[in-house]
């Protein structure tokens, strides 16, 4: 991986990003704005599940309002994240916490996607059981916490020592 990172750092694309000092701050800003949309959209749906917001709408309606913002923002995150990796491959790919972040991201994205797919098919089940089952409420809180953990790991990359 170190070999690959060093090769990537030597490519023209990477050199350009390293030389143009505005690219990385701009990409990080876009990255933070997109993570803001993901966290808040997941949060608003979770608040609906917990019964703390969205009383005027069904769970399916709330999900249809916010889910497109989650997936669109996730694409923006992957693209801006890709530019950041190309710009600073050793700093990103060379630290353990980057791979922990990728693992947490996979868990967060997969559980959010599974919930939304199931909600599309079994809206009535989720609507009824949301009120009754503590497990569903606990899951909502855990999934939000995993998304927050992705952000924590992301910020930690900046302070990590090379480990690979």
């Amino acid at each position: 991986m170190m070999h690959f990172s060093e090769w990537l750092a030597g490519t023209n694309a990477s050199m350009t990003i390293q030389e143009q000092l505005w690219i990385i701050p701009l990409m990080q800003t876009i990255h933070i704005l997109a993570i803001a949309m993901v966290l808040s959209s997941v949060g608003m749906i979770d608040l609906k599940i917990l019964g703390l917001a969205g009383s005027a709408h069904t769970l399916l309606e709330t999900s249809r309002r916010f889910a497109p913002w989650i997936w669109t923002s996730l694409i923006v995150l992957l693209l801006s994240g890709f530019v950041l990796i190309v710009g600073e491959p050793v700093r990103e790919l060379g630290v353990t916490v980057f791979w922990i972040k990728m693992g947490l991201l996979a868990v967060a994205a997969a559980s959010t996607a599974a919930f939304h797919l199931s909600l599309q098919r079994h809206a009535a089940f989720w609507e009824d059981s949301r009120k009754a089952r503590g497990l569903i409420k606990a899951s909502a809180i855990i999934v939000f916490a995993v998304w927050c953990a992705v952000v924590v790991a992301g910020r930690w990359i900046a302070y990590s020592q090379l480990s690979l």
Partner: protein
Amino acid sequence: MNIQMMLDWLGETSLSLWLQTSSWGFQAVETVHVIAIALVFGTIATVDLRLVGVASKSSAITAVMKDALPWTWGAFVMAAISGVLMILSAPTTYYYNGPFRIKLILLLLAGINMLVFETIVVRDIQRWDRQPRTPIAARCCGGLSLIFWISIVGLGRWIGFTKLPF
């Protein structure tokens, strides 16, 4: 007592010294700041996007505000506390940092924009609460709020790249 003496004094408080020397203190505070600002921006954007007519058009504006704004305020308090701690870690550096000063002005403008909306624009909200298309004043407040908060996030990141001399 001039401003430099005050900055020096702040920089010598035990909390400031801990933030300067701890191996994890500053980055923990910064992480809380990022999560807090993400929630401030994302939740206030829910209201702003409704006002400018991009999202939630089938919901009453007052309902969108009631769902989102308590969390915006909670997250804002978190962002303010963590932000003050970050300033405390290097008071002189922040005080003389250009992007930091612009960011404070934009925070003030975002606050004034919100006050104008909450005290003047909402007076006749009963007439357009449920309408997908809001009056021009409301659309302006929503659009300005988005511009201010996007700029605030951008300036925050910019501070990180200008705080230390290159």
